[in-house]
């Protein structure tokens, strides 16, 4: 970025105002959601080890439907007498594992595919993009449902199915970023210097498209958590009695008029987690594109 030119450049902007960025994002906009995400992750993964919470399954029916703030059960218990807080933490663990795994897989496979497609161009590019068009032009939840059911409900299968459908989005972003990058002089000079293609991809392309992919990955975390919840909600995700946010909400739905809190607790945690990831993604994007 030309720091020296900034003065006149600013005035030029004023003379012929071009598309203005949405303004700078305060660091609070990043720190706050990041802290929320960290807190939730910490609670889910470390919480059950250090806090005195009962196990998430195997509760006694004698203790079912306890209200919140009952002794030993901060958020009360569900119809099977299991501790709700414990189930939320345990469910969050699997939600986060699925979301991280899916986005990591999608980012690596989709990112590589897109970068290759954009970098190599030609027929390969056309073929890859056509195939991805097939996947992207599609209500992915519908196919995910079919895939999840075909493979049988399990965490691994959920991850594989969701990762498969996250590839096109990552690939598109990666390809667009690579195409923009290809126009820049340093890429031409790298090619002219005879640097091998894989080395250019690794050394020049990868670090430059990473921010955009990671930003999208943050939004992707929210999306995957929601879809994973939907699968579990429909009974096609993590099989009960193992807890997940989705199947807790589904279970609570049966008695929503009598004990609405069974729906409210996992829903609230789901919402806060997704919101935090969305804010993180949005603000990262604004920050990276804002200057």
């Amino acid at each position, binding site marked *: 970025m030309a720091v020296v030119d900034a003065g006149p450049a600013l005035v030029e902007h004023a003379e*012929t105002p071009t598309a203005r960025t*949405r303004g700078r994002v305060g660091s609070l906009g990043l720190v706050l959601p990041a802290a929320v995400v960290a807190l939730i992750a910490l609670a889910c993964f470390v919480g059950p080890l250090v806090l005195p919470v009962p196990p998430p399954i195997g509760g006694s029916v004698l203790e079912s439907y306890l209200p919140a703030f009952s002794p030993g059960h901060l958020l009360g218990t569900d119809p099977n007498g299991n501790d709700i807080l414990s189930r939320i933490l345990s469910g969050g663990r699997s939600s986060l594992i699925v979301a991280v795994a899916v986005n990591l897989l999608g980012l690596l496979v989709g990112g590589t595919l897109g970068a290759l497609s954009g970098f190599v161009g030609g027929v390969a590019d056309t073929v890859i993009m056509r195939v991805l068009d097939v996947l992207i032009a*599609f209500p992915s*939840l519908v*196919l995910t449902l079919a895939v999840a059911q*075909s493979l049988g409900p399990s965490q691994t299968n959920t991850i594989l199915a969701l990762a498969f459908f996250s590839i096109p989005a990552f690939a598109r972003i990666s390809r667009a970023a690579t195409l923009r990058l290809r126009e820049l002089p340093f890429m031409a000079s790298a090619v002219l210097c005879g640097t091998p293609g894989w080395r250019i991809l690794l050394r020049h392309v990868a670090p430059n498209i990473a921010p955009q992919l990671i930003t999208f990955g943050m939004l992707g975390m929210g999306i995957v958590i929601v879809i994973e919840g939907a699968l579990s*909600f429909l009974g096609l995700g993590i099989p009960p009695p193992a807890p997940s946010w989705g199947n807790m909400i589904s279970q*609570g739905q049966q008695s929503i008029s009598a004990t*609405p809190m069974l729906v409210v607790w996992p*829903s609230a945690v789901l919402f806060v987690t997704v919101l935090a990831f969305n804010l993180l993604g949005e603000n990262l994007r604004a920050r990276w594109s804002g200057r």
Partner: protein
Amino acid sequence: MTASVGAGRHRAGAGFLTSPGMRLVGKRLLLAVPIVLGVSILTFWVLNLIPGSAAQQLLGPEATPEQVRALELELGLDRPAVLRYLDWLGGAVTGDLGQSLVSRQPVTDLLGERLAVSGELAALAFLISLGLAVPTALLAAYRPNRLFDRLSMVVSITGLSVANYVLALLLVLIFAVQMAVFPAIGFVPLSQGPGANLQSMALPAVAIAFPLYCFYTRFLRGDLVDQLQGEDYVTTARAKGIGPWQVLVRHAFRNSAFGLITVVGLNLGTLIGGTVIVEQIFALPGMGQLMLQAINTRDFVVVQACVVVFAVAAVLANLLADLLYAVLDPRIRYGSR
């Protein structure tokens, strides 16, 4: 070539079929065919991965291997997948989507009414979301970064973070359980009066519409502000001395609308996907419910049909957006010099 040169001269309508816009739509239509084909192949392949065979599932766990084998033969499941796919495809292009493995009814009969329910739901959700998003975005862009704008942005990011099944249950909790103004579940067909029908559709439609509303508002508001702050024609309009609302609606919105059409077209796939889970929650007899039932009974002929119908709907929506774009945007309609 002649078409694009000549197009500059004649009025709208004349030679419309050969105009650049229509040629664009034709190209997209040709692209849509392989997409739908690809989706059907993908579904077929995926459904073939099912561990327990359909016959086993249909007969229950007590069935003997002989019984299973006999049913497989009867259903033609012993034939290679490629042949079965080609058979299916041959039927599909003539409007025959096969027979349900469970009920033995023709799939097209099963789809009929359910398609209408899902279609009504999607249409309602679409109308609500777009109908509210446009005025909200216009109001927000009228005074960017002021109270209304900031408020609507908070609502949008919130709405985009609420899963539609959570929202659906929240609506049930408030409007059906607490206030009892709408039914929690169930469907009243249009034949029993539009009032009752709309009442049974209201909550599900809102549950699907709200996240879309947030998405459209956010997009349109952002694009409007970009137009207002970055485009020279806006300065020209302001320099004419016309009022700020006129600048916003007649000039900026006119241009933003094109971006919105594209986004809406791409987004209709999400809208259709959203109907699946919401139908389940509200027990609406739509496509989503049919598909979930079929998934659970391993009736993969029905699943296949549902998936393809969803795909065709998404592709058609996209195509419709392209068509609309081509009809509305003079740059495409008349080609550029």
